[in-house]
């Protein structure tokens, strides 16, 4: 068999963009033409905006990766590649020579995403070929305390959002007294706008298994759980395959690699509750109860799952472990800042050109992430804000874009690093509407245990809704601030304690927008429909009837070559006429 390999990215995002058709077309073509090449599935390389993505390798031209592939274009490219001709289709990355996005990868440092989109996630030999499970072998030869010291020295901080030292957390579980201990992987990635964990689980599941096995050995645990949200069926499928393969090869199960260390790993599917990302709620859910948080202390390290010492880390944290053991704490510390070492994965989304997953060393500026790695704005409208940290985070304005990516610097802005969702917004986004959106989310997801979180967020949502409907009063802003302070003080878990952040940061940086809604009854971004009015400019309307034909409620009247008119009572403010008119005759205000 020749060395030529065709790799098709078939993670969730690739499949949604049509990678399934591309894969079947190549499969057919190989059997029709009796080609001596291999076809494999891989996961997400992170460039979701270029999906479907196909990589060709094994010829003198080196690895060539193509974007926006279709079932037709792939055949032409494959023929070109096999004939040694230059590829005529869209080449996004090339090992030798130039390609559109070569520079994007050059600005990144991939530790967590090292294998994503590169290996076949359903193949254990693929993972082993990249040095997989060597770290587990090394760790099993080490003293358990030394493993914990290495993790501590690396400076790794929990990537779930709070940023607590992973080594210290492991130390607590190590020191806890108990005949039975657990390790848990928090894969309940619920922040809207974040999909880092999904990509790692789909693209490199063994790296999580290896990290957890090392952690379990170091802390003295013999059983573990991966708590994965049920909205990620492909991730669960890949994890199941990985666990079965690893058990068979002796990387999991009894007497791992011939030692007396045994470790059983189970998958628990979530059932849809955002609060279960909080560690005490997550444990209640694993135990089969309603996922409601409990008071800490006792911390999980003392009394966790079924009352036993338990250590919980999130997906990205676990994915760092084997790299640190293989390369050492000093190598990890080379990247990042003094207090935030290593790299961070971000999910770029919203109005950004290169949406997808990226991994950068800590310490780069947010501006560089957006403009150098993310390619800048997708829309013609200028940048307005970037939302970090999901419903627990905040919106950072243009003026603060030179803030560096590290836990402490981002906290100072009022946002949080969070799990790494970065949603870019342009001038067409209303910040009051964004705040209302997040409050609606937290209000829905509040488990109801703490009064301030349960009722306080509801009151805040009501006020914000009033403001977006033009019914706001000036004193509402003070009430919002008071409620925010009290919710932060009066809530037990992270959900409530951070729920007001989106409101507080928008009030801090975009107060004038709140005032425009309240005092002038005007939405500057033209988003809040109650405050919107579409009108036709008689000077510009040529009577082409395009808007009237597009209007879903038939509220535009006027005959051909006559000036049209919108019936304001019937208008639902959907904006269809506005986007249809080629003459700029529909005015929004």
């Amino acid at each position: 068999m020749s060395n030529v390999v065709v790799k098709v990215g078939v993670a969730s995002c690739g499949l949604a963009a049509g990678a399934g058709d591309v894969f079947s077309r190549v499969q057919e073509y190989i059997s029709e033409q009796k080609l001596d090449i291999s076809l494999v599935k891989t996961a997400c390389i992170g460039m979701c905006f270029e999906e479907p993505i196909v990589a060709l390798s094994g010829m003198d031209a080196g690895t060539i990766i193509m974007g926006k592939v279709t079932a037709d274009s792939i055949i032409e490219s494959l023929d070109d590649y096999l004939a040694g001709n230059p590829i005529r289709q869209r080449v996004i990355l090339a090992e030798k020579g130039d390609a559109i996005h070569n520079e994007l990868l050059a600005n990144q440092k991939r530790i967590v995403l090292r294998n994503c989109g590169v290996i076949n996630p359903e193949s254990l030999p693929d993972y082993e070929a990249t040095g997989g499970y060597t770290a587990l072998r090394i760790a099993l030869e080490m003293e358990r305390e030394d493993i914990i010291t290495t993790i501590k020295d690396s400076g790794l901080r929990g990537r779930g959002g709070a940023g607590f030292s992973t080594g210290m957390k492991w130390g607590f579980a190590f020191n806890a007294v108990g005949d039975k201990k657990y390790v848990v992987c928090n894969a309940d990635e619920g922040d809207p706008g974040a999909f880092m964990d999904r990509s790692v689980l789909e693209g490199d599941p063994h790296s999580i298994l290896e990290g957890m096995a090392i952690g379990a050995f170091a802390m003295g645990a013999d059983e573990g759980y991966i708590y994965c949200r049920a909205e990620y069926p492909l991730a669960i499928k890949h994890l199941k395959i990985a666990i079965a393969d690893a058990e068979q090869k002796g990387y999991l199960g009894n007497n791992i690699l011939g030692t007396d260390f045994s470790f059983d790993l189970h998958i628990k599917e979530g059932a849809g509750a955002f609060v279960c990302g909080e560690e005490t709620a997550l444990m209640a859910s694993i135990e089969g109860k309603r996922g409601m948080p409990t008071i800490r202390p006792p911390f999980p390290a003392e009394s966790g799952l079924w009352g036993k010492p338990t250590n919980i880390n999130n997906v990205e944290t676990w994915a760092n472990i084997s790299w640190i053991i293989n390369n050492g704490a000093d190598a990890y510390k080379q990247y990042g800042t003094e207090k935030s070492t290593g790299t961070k994965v971000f999910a770029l989304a919203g109005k950004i050109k290169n949406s997808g997953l990226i991994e950068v060393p800590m310490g780069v500026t947010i501006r560089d992430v957006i403009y150098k790695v993310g390619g800048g704005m997708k829309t013609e409208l200028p940048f307005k804000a970037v939302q970090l940290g999901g419903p627990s985070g905040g919106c950072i304005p243009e003026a603060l874009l030179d803030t560096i990516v590290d836990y402490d610097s981002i906290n100072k802005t009022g946002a949080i690093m969070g799990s790494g969702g970065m949603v870019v917004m342009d001038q067409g986004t209303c910040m009051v509407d964004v705040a209302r959106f997040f409050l609606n989310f937290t209000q829905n997801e509040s488990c109801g245990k703490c009064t301030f979180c349960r009722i306080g967020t509801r009151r805040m949502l009501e006020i914000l809704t009033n403001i977006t409907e033009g019914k706001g009063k000036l004193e509402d802003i003070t009430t919002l601030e008071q409620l925010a302070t009290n919710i932060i003080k009066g809530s037990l878990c992270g959900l409530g304690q951070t729920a007001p952040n989106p409101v507080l940061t928008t009030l801090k940086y975009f107060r004038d927008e709140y005032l425009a809604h309240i005092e002038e009854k005007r939405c500057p971004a033209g988003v809040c429909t109650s405050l919107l009015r579409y009108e036709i400019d008689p000077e510009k309307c040529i009577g082409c009837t395009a808007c009237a034909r597009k209007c879903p409620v038939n509220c535009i009247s006027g005959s051909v070559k006559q000036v049209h008119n919108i019936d304001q009572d019937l208008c639902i403010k959907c904006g269809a006429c506005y986007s249809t008119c080629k003459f700029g005759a529909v005015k929004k205000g």
Partner: protein
Amino acid sequence: MQNVVSKLDAVIQKYHGKKGALIPLMQEVQDLEGYLSHNTMQYLSEQTNVPVAEIFGVATFYSMFRLKAQGRHVIRICKGTACHVSGANGILYSLRENLQLEPGEETTTDGNFTLVEVACLGCCSLAPVIMIDDQTFGTLTPEAIPSILDKFAFAGDTV
């Protein structure tokens, strides 16, 4: 009915004696009929000795559990941040319009579709996104909705 009971018994047996099994057990039971009826929860309680209040408590806490029958196809519309700023509201409006759903209604009268709003499907780069059963549709416009729904149109008798 007897058929369902024997399947129920098989699922219950599978999880018998396993710790923390209530949620996966309920998920599998729900897969049998597409939702958890009061009778099913009552039966589950009798067979497992878990109080029915606890089962009901779990069922109402998690969004994946449904207490009402579902349509043949489930449409999940993503209301995540990226979808929200990319026009998810327009997509929702178009869906409700095309499915002729009254306010507060989730399932079409012919029982073909159930529309559910979800927090985030994790395909933010394709926003706005909907998922019908296990197929994802991305970079949508309101105009694209009718032709997508047509692919799932029900040809047979109404329920």
